[in-house]
């Protein structure tokens, strides 16, 4: 894809993000923060490729550390939001 095409995706995603996030009520902002944080672990995709296919030892080691860190971010982030939200759906029966 060309740069402008990527930019188009970026712009559209920014509109979607803005419209959706501004609709989320304050009381869900803490789980949102940790959920969004988990999504930013999408960089795990890059880590996976680098760790798995690293041709030099150095790249493999860096990739390994990157995978560990990104996975902590993803797994921990989703779990923490899940725990918080589970409490909401217990408490909030409306």
């Amino acid at each position: 894809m060309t740069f402008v095409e990527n930019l188009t995706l970026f712009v559209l995603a920014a509109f979607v993000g803005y419209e959706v996030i501004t609709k989320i009520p304050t009381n869900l902002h803490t789980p949102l923060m940790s959920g969004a944080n988990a999504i930013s672990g999408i960089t795990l995709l890059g880590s996976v490729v680098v760790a798995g296919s690293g041709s030099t030892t150095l790249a493999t080691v860096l990739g390994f550390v990157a995978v560990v860190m990104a996975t902590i971010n993803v797994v921990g982030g989703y779990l923490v939001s899940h725990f918080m939200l589970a409490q909401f759906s217990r408490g909030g029966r409306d």
Partner: protein
Amino acid sequence: MAGVLGGLPEAVLQFTYLVAAVLFIQGLRDMTHPRTATRGNATSAGGMFLAVLVTVLWFEILSPVVLAAGLLVGGAVGVWLAVSVETTEMPQLVGLFNGFGGGASALVAGAELIDVLGTGTQLSVGLTTTAAIAGIIGSVTFWGSLVAAGKLHGVVGDSPVSPNAGHALKGLFLLLAVLAGLFLIVRPDIFGQPPVTPWLPSYWVLVAAASVLGVFLVVPIGGADMPVVIALLNSYSGLAAATTGFVLDNTVLIIAGTLVGASGLILTVIMCDSMNRSLRNVLFGGLGGETESEDMDEIYEGQITETSPEEVVMLMETTQRVVIVPGYGMAVAQAQHAVAELVGLLDENGVDVEFGIHPVAGRMPGHMNALLAEADVPYEKMRELEEVNPTFSQTDLVIVTGANDVVNPKANTDDSSPIAGMPVLNVSEARSVVVNKRSLSPGFSGIPNPLFAKDNASMLFGDAKESMQALVNHYKEETS
């Protein structure tokens, strides 16, 4: 490159990434209501799982053991941290996780550069530019988040350097990082012998400079402003992922990264707005928690009425409507269960009881709601500022527990105070107010609170959990 699925057309990979992106968006859309939010989180996690799975299966994995080990170790640590951490420590945990994401981005960019060099290819300008951006943002995010989490956890203190020296140091290291980035782009060989050594020194100089920058950026900011910092760094790490997506032509990185960037930025703006401060002021305004040596004694002298749990229970017995205002102290004391029990008892006895929740009570947006939900308080009992403020004049008793700044009338009256203009809960309009905290010491903004000296206010000194438990016990005795 060809992995397990490598025989399939590229469109399959692209399409799976699109599905993952849709799951992320749908997950966020489900976050707009507490009823669907759990499902939304699961949907988003499903998107992540799908994206990772197809990536693992698609690309050629030379060292499957390394990859599997990394995923296992990371997964185990993530689960362990998430399970073992207290609700009060959530803010710093989220900060820590965010730092790890940023760090991973910086490492990936470095490893990618080394890999490309290893194949003997020239480093393209596009690659080095984005690698430099990802390296700077990633390193700043990693160290900044670590400092932020440390401050929230109370293990990192305040900056030892003066604000002006601090600004100079920030400028210096930013310059260093940018210079290293330029060298990486223009002359990747500058610190090494041509052909460049696989260590690629200029990239690591960049990472080192950006790391120091990250520390210097966050250390001078007051501990209570850390949630704003973490939200902003979260936005940064999303933008770093999107930047990487531009180089790799990876749609899901662009979309997911942009969503996170938007989310972090919006949360940052909302937090600044409800504190009535500019982002600039938060980031560069020096310590938020700095204590003015104001004449607290003069304000409080002889004006403070102390009360006891017994007296408060007597008050409670004659009231029709009670509003409870929780604050950061409730989180510190983990008093939410005791508070919830008290509310349950009042409810049973026909008292109209609600919570008045300020948007920045606690240390994260929605902090109080999350804690109270944990203690099974029904959603409809938690009222927001605009809803509850008009009702105080018809309220008999307000119990403030562990809150301070969010009930400080100075915000309305004193233009020079650091919280001037912040909308607060006007609790003193109620017939009587009981304030529960451990001392007369100020809250996050470091200013005295004239509420404590009001005629209809009395102080119930003590730890929030113990005090609330005492109220519960006395109330049970009295009403049974």
